[in-house]
Each structure stands twice: as structure tokens, then as C-alpha cells.
């Protein structure tokens, strides 16, 4: 740990981009225009499953005002036979077919063609003039429908168990021998669960503005969780080399994983190239709901065996997750994270990736982990009840700790899971009295966290201030964390540090804002760059004082002799050395590019109180406390914000949010009125308890914090509902109609 004092780390500073965002000055993706700009619109399939026999764009192209039309013919094809072409976790064979349907349309909303015209209205009119000859095919949306015998097959080339199938793959994590484990058990509980697809729900729809010059030089202005991902995918899908694409990250209006892939950028680039005009595309909310995200719906079975003293001896989970139109559901998160908080000798956790006729899933906050944890943590609640144990005590008895080998592979270093359980046990919330129809539930959760590639530049300005450039779009306040760390390292006022997000052609490669990696990874590269800058500053002072650089220390924003023995010199401040830079060796700055390692997983434990309106079936969360091992809270307010935001999303997932399909296989609630995310009056204050067990592998002790907070929530709410009503729910959401139905059913049946 190279930070010992804490003047800025841990302070609730004003974020660098704050004033822009409270005054309306911040420029999000849809906020920019260019001279000569025209508008792009997408024609989308009305069918859940259809073969595209032909597309005729002649009438659309003839409409006055239309400047370009593109179809899949214009997009680089990654053929299925040639095998996977991976970009991160995305296979470009599926990406090229997701941005524009090729031989088949696989969900209602699947792009079929795109038009650019002088106005949005003309572009929309032109879309209606495109003639698509569809051969409508039978379709399947729900998992059971997609995996049953005779199900319509989305991808005919795929075989599972030797037969054509919509199961695109299976993974497993294994430890010990579950057959032996269940033999050792004195009590076994096995339950099945289902969850519905839910959308990330970012308030900013996808948008971009793209200009392509006559020589192919391309400027992309868009909202994403990674400008480098935008550049790479656009390059691969259009054939324009990456060196010719400058992807500028606009301020991003929420992502939660949903903006880790492209939808519009390749289409707008091709439209701009064809038309010679800058093209702007902005999705409507309905398009966002029909054609982007969400995360998987799921079907899970979890079986846990324990001794009568509460020692868990065996666990088996099988998780079927909807991938949507193309393979790639987050089974890894469900399989790997579900049992990770526990030290269990015999574990088998398996995941099945199931395609069906709905939009391709995108990452959503700890992808897959909340689905798995919902099932596991609900079974643990039943186990605690059956054993007459306190549910936190049951978890403590089996908690993973330093040295525990997780079923997904790693042996945990020093982790803070036990600390979160103890903090929850000791929290006043856990002992607070409950009233009639009120109940309390607890649950824990784990997320892998991530490191990976990051780049940063730290430059000293001529007037002795600091500009830090990183490559990660800042969604939740990461710039504030970077500024705190940089001010700390350089020993200067926080306000003298300006943090900006560079575009693809001005800062080194930086991987996605995702996996809870941004502050972990970017503070590593910023720390190394700041260390290099400090070394330069010490050398400059040493040269001026004509002493050895080793005899100079950097403290409180200035160079000092390490001791009186080194000589008697007045300190040289950052401003002094910046002023002298031209004559002393030139500009001062450093850049660092790293593939960061050492992101350790994160754990959280949540306590939830609910009150049920038994007449209306409405469940209200009345008190909530999220406890999490956050490593080091560099900016506590934004750490709390991550916890609170994750909890709110989980409450929505638990109680109301779901995709509802009509009989034609189309989403029936593609707007915020009917897709019911929590509003302000739905929620109580969301309390946070930050446990800080520093990550030993990070210079400031940072652990990712953004994703863990969603993982335990649905189970915590479900366990609270059970505690309030004495009835268990095995499917989400626990919306008023479902709660009313269970309350109206005879007790025996409801408990099944």
C-alpha cells in the first residue's frame, strides 16, 4: 500500500463532472449535432421467428429525402462455419446477425434494414416502403417451450446431446463428489425457481452520431460502456480499420451492462458512408425495450444437503438461462457465483444456455449471479428454518474465508465475507421489532469482479495543475474516485486535478466499463503514472539543487530534501517545477498501459424488511440495509450509491419488473408505464454498512463494488415475504396478482 496518509482518499469530494450534470451542460449521446446531419431509422421485424426470403428497398430509396438504405448485405458477415470470432465475451458471428438479421429474423424488433433521410419523419416513412418477404416460422420464447421435444429450432446447425436443440451450451463448476456429499447429509432441501427477463432500465436510450469522411476517416459520438468496444465492433462489422475510427465517449445515461455491445453504431456508420452525411440515430424507448438487453429469464433447481448442526455438505444447482436470439446467456455468473460464499466440500453447479425468440440478452449488473443467488439463498433460508437456526448463523457456520477453494476454481485470499455477516448480525436493523404482516429476510451474494486492460495519462499543465486522462466511460462517479487518488498521491488539492475520459485515438486501449473493474483497474494505472511523474519531479528538483534524486522526497505537493543532511533547500512545488520544465528537460507527464491483475471477488449481505398489504397483494420494502466488503471506499458517497442503486434494481426485479409477452410473441409492455421499475415513492431510505477489508493486491486496497449489491436482493426480499406471510414464493416477480393468488390459495398448496 503506497498511500499512508488519507487527505483525499475516503473524502466525499464534489465529482469533477458534477456541475455539468446539475446544470444541463453535460453532453450525452443524443445531445450533439453536426452540420449537414441527417437521421437514421431502423426497420424491425414484426415476427418472433421468420425466414427472410427477400428485401426490396427500391421504393424507400426513391422517396425524396432518403439518402441511404442498408441491409445485411452491407454488413461484414462472420459465417457460422468458420467458427467463433471473439471480441471479449462476444462472438462476432452473433453480433453481425444481431445488429441486422441475415437469413432469419429471430425476435420481434430484430433489425432488418436501416434508412437515413433528411428528417426523422421521412426516414420513418421510408422504412414503411421497404418490402420484406417473410416466411413466418413457429416460435418459442419461454425456456420450457424452447427445450421441449419438437420445439422450433432457432439455429439449425446446433446440436445438443446429438439432436438439433436450442440448448447452445452447458458449463459446470465442480468440487468433490455430490453423490457422496448427499449421502453424508442428514437433511436435504431441493426447490425449483423461475425468474422473468428484466431490463437494465437505463433512462438514456441508445444513441449515436457518426460522420464518415470521403477517405473513410470516421468519427463516432455515442453512449456506451466502452469506446474501444464501439470502435472494434464497428470496425469488424463495417470493414473500416480501427485506426480510421475515432470513437468519442459521450456522457452515458446509465448502462448497467446493457451498453457493452453495439446496436446502432455499425448501421449509422454504413448509412453515413453511403450518404456522405453525418447520421444521427436515437432509439425510442419502445425500441430499447424490444431490441436491447434485457437479462435472462431463468429456471433453476437447487438442492442443498446439510448435517443437523448446520454444516453444509453438498450442493447441486442447475441453472437454465434464456440467451434470447443468440447464444451467450450469463450462465458463468449463475454457475460460478451462486455457491461461492460458502465452504462446501461437494458442489456441482451447472448452467445451460438456451436460445429463444426474444432479444439477445446483454449483461446486467453481475450477469447471472443474482439469478443463481436467488435460488441458493432462498433454499438456505428454508434450511435455516428447518434446522431452527438463525439464517445469518447458518451462513457464518459455512462462510468462505481465506484459503477456501471456490467450486469455480480460485482459492480465496483474505476476503471480507465473514465481516459482512457479523456486521449484519450486529446491525440494529437485525434486532428491530416487526409488526403485523411485516417480515425480515437476509441473503448474501458474491461477484467475481474484474481487472483487465486499462490505460491512463497523467500530465502536469504548464501552470502546475494536473490532467488525468483515462479510457473508461464514467457512469457512477469513477472520475471522482480517480481525482481523490491522484490528489492523494501528488499531495495537492483535489480541485487541481481534472479527470477526463479520452477517446479511442487519444488514450491507450482500455477495456469496458463493466465487471466492477473501473476504479480497480484505472486507479492502478493512474497510480503507476503518478509514481512516474513524482519520480520525474524529484529528478528535476535534484538537478536544480545539484543533489542525488534519492535525496529528494515528494511530500505535500512539493519536493523536499529527504533530511537536513541532503542540504538546505526551499521546497519546490508542483507549480515551481512546471514553470521550470521547459529549461529542465521538457514537459512532465507519464502514461501507463497495463493488463491489470488481482481483482478479488466481492461479498455482500443484505437485510430486508417488508410489509404486505394482504388485501391488495402489494409487497412494500419498508427497511433495507446492505452490508458489503468494499475493500477501500475511495469516495464513500459513490460507493454507497452503487449499493443503493443495486438494491433498488433488485427490489424492482423481485416485486414488479418482468417482460410480458402477448399471444403473438411480442413484448406487451415495452414502456416505463407498464414495465414497472421502482419509483421514488416505492422505496424507503436504503441504508449501507461499508465493511473495508482492503484488497491486498491493489495499491489503494480497492475492490470492485458495483455489481455485488444486486446479487442478494431478490432472495432477501423473498425471504422477508416468507417471514411476513409464512408462504414461500418460488417465482419472480412477487407482483400483486401473484401475491394475491398465493394468499387466496389454501395454505398447504401455497407451500408446495
Amino acid at each position, binding site marked *: 500500500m503506497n498511500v499512508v496518509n488519507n487527505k483525499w482518499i475516503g473524502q466525499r469530494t464534489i*465529482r469533477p463532472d458534477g456541475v455539468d450534470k446539475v*446544470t*444541463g451542460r453535460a453532453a450525452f449521446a443524443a445531445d450533439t449535432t453536426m452540420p449537414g446531419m441527417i437521421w437514421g431509422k431502423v426497420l424491425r421485424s414484426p415476427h418472433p421467428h421468420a425466414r427472410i426470403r427477400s428485401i426490396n428497398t427500391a421504393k424507400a430509396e426513391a422517396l425524396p429525402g432518403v439518402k441511404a438504405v442498408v441491409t445485411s448485405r452491407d454488413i461484414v458477415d462472420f459465417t457460422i462455419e468458420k467458427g467463433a470470432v471473439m471480441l471479449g465475451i462476444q462472438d462476432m458471428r452473433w453480433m453481425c446477425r444481431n445488429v441486422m438479421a441475415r437469413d432469419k429474423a429471430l425476435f420481434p424488433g430484430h433489425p432488418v434494414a436501416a434508412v437515413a433521410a433528411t428528417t426523422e419523419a421521412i426516414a420513418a416513412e421510408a422504412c414503411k416502403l421497404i418490402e420484406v418477404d417473410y416466411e413466418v416460422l413457429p416460435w418459442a420464447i419461454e425456456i420450457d417451450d424452447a427445450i421441449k421435444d419438437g420445439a422450433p429450432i432457432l439455429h439449425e446447425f446446433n446440436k445438443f446431446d446429438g439432436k438439433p436443440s436450442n440448448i447452445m451450451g452447458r458449463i459446470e463448476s465442480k468440487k468433490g463428489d455430490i453423490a457422496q456429499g448427499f449421502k453424508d447429509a442428514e437433511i436435504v432441501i431441493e426447490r425449483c425457481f423461475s425468474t422473468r427477463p428484466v431490463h437494465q432500465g437505463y*433512462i438514456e436510450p441508445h444513441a449515436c452520431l457518426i460522420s464518415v469522411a470521403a477517405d473513410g476517416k470516421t468519427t463516432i459520438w455515442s453512449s456506451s460502456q466502452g469506446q474501444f468496444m464501439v470502435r472494434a465492433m464497428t470496425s469488424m462489422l463495417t470493414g473500416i480499420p480501427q485506426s480510421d475510427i475515432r470513437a468519442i465517449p459521450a456522457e452515458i*445515461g446509465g448502462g448497467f451492462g446493457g451498453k457493452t455491445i453495439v446496436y446502432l453504431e455499425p448501421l449509422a456508420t454504413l448509412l453515413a458512408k453511403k450518404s456522405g452525411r453525418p447520421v444521427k440515430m436515437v432509439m425510442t424507448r419502445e425500441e430499447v425495450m424490444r431490441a436491447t438487453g434485457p437479462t435472462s429469464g431463468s429456471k433453476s433447481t437447487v438442492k442443498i444437503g446439510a448435517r443437523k448442526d448446520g454444516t453444509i455438505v453438498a450442493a447441486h444447482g442447475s441453472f437454465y438461462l434464456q440467451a434470447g436470439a443468440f447464444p451467450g446467456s450469463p450462465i458463468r455468473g449463475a454457475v460460478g457465483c451462486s455457491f461461492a460464499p460458502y465452504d462446501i466440500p461437494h458442489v456441482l453447479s451447472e448452467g445451460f444456455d438456451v436460445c429463444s425468440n426474444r432479444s439477445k440478452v446483454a449483461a446486467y449488473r453481475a450477469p447471472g449471479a443474482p439469478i443463481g443467488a436467488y435460488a441458493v439463498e432462498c433454499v438456505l433460508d428454508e434450511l435455516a428454518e428447518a434446522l431452527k437456526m438463525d439464517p445469518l448463523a447458518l451462513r457464518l457456520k459455512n462462510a468462505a474465508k481465506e484459503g477456501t477453494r471456490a467450486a469455480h476454481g480460485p482459492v480465496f485470499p483474505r476476503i471480507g465475507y465473514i465481516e459482512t455477516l457479523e456486521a449484519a448480525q450486529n446491525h440494529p436493523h437485525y434486532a428491530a421489532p416487526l409488526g403485523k404482516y411485516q417480515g425480515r429476510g437476509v441473503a448474501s451474494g458474491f461477484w467475481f469482479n474484474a481487472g483487465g486492460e486499462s490505460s491512463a495519462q497523467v500530465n502536469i499543465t504548464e501552470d502546475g495543475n494536473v490532467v488525468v486522462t483515462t479510457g473508461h466511460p464514467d457512469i457512477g462517479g469513477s472520475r471522482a474516485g480517480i481525482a481523490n487518488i491522484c490528489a492523494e498521491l501528488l499531495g495537492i488539492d483535489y480541485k487541481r486535478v481534472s479527470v477526463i475520459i479520452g477517446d479511442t485515438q487519444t488514450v491507450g486501449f482500455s477495456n469496458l466499463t463493466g465487471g466492477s473493474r473501473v476504479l480497480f483497474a484505472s486507479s492502478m494505472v493512474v497510480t503507476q503514472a503518478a509514481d512516474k511523474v513524482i519520480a520525474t519531479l524529484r529528478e528535476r528538483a535534484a538537478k536544480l539543487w545539484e543533489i542525488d534524486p534519492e535525496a529528494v522526497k515528494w511530500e505535500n505537493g512539493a519536493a523536499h530534501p529527504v533530511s537536513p543532511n541532503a542540504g538546505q533547500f526551499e521546497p519546490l512545488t508542483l507549480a515551481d517545477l512546471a514553470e521550470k520544465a521547459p529549461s529542465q528537460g521538457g514537459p512532465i507527464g507519464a502514461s501507463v498501459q497495463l493488463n491489470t491483475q488481482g481483482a478479488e471477488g466481492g461479498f455482500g449481505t443484505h437485510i430486508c424488511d417488508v410489509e404486505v398489504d394482504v388485501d391488495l397483494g402489494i409487497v412494500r420494502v419498508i427497511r433495507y440495509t446492505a452490508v458489503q466488503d468494499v475493500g477501500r471506499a475511495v469516495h464513500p458517497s459513490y460507493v454507497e450509491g452503487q449499493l*443503493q*442503486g443495486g438494491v433498488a434494481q433488485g427490489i424492482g426485479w423481485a416485486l414488479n419488473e418482468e417482460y410480458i409477452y402477448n399471444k403473438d410473441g411480442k413484448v406487451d409492455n415495452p414502456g416505463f408505464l407498464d414495465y414497472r421499475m421502482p419509483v421514488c*415513492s416505492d422505496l424507503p431510505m436504503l441504508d449501507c454498512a461499508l465493511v473495508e477489508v482492503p484488497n491486498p493486491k491493489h495499491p489503494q486496497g480497492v475492490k470492485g463494488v458495483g455489481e455485488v449489491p444486486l446479487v442478494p436482493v431478490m432472495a432477501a426480499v423473498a425471504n422477508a415475504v416468507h417471514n411476513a406471510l409464512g408462504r414461500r414464493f418460488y417465482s419472480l416477480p412477487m407482483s400483486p396478482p401473484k401475491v394475491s393468488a398465493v394468499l387466496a390459495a389454501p395454505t398447504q398448496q401455497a407451500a408446495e
Partner: protein
Amino acid sequence: MPKLHVTTSVNGEPVEFLCEPYETMLDALRGQLGLTGSKEGCSSGDCGACSITLDGRLVCSCLMLAAEAEGHEIRTIEGMAKGEKLHPLQQKFLEHAALQCGICTSGMLVASEALLAKNSNPTEEEVRFWLAGNLCRCTGYDKIVRAVMETAAEMRETAR
């Protein structure tokens, strides 16, 4: 049909613009008037990111026709700070970290200001129900509600 000519006032300044009959106030603000602080999250009046006031009344500008601005007074997020001096709500939102991505922030602030103009001493419940028309997906609303309550308390103190 020719475009309509609209004469109105935006943030205290006289403004004229041309619009299509079907264009919304949000389209006019973000397009013709270049005021992109008001955001479009849904265009159905559900998210509140486009909140403005019309003669002091809180409205979703995506549900208002641009032509309806004729002769009225519009206020937007861009008019909230007085020069370099932030409105107390803006300052308190920054201090409380009551924003993450910031896409809902303009609407939240405009709605909160409209609340405090009507009710200088709102309860937590009143704040929550007033802001129920402004979706935020990042914060869970906790810090927003605290920021509004604390601003109200400070403004009452100052007004004394």
C-alpha cells in the same frame, strides 16, 4: 402545412421559433432552441427526464406541443443557476452525490424546485410522491430525497 411561428419566453428571455404542428416542446427545446439539458427518456411522460415548468407548473415537455408555448413562460434546467451561482438544490445534489449517470438529474432538479416553490417544508413522504414521476435507475433515490429535504431545511433557515 406550413410551420407554426411561436413566440414565448424561455428562462426569462423572449424567444421565437418555428415548429411543425406535431412537434413537442421537448423537440423544440432540444432542437431549434439548442437547450439539450432536458432529456428524452421515454417520450410518454413516464420518466420525467424532460421536466420543465410552464408558468410555474411542472410538466413533461415531451407531452406538451411546442405550439402550446405561445405566450407562456417556460423554465428549464438551463435557467436554474444564476450565472456562476448554483441553485441551492444543485449545490446540495453535488454535496450529497445525488446523481450518478446524470441523465435524470435535470428533470429531478426542475421537479424538486417546483416542489419547494409550493411546499417549503415537505415531509419525506411528500418528497417521494412528488418525485414519483421522475425515474432514476442509478441511485435508488436515497441521496436525492436527502438532498431535497436538506435543501428545503436550509432554504427555510435562509428565508427566516
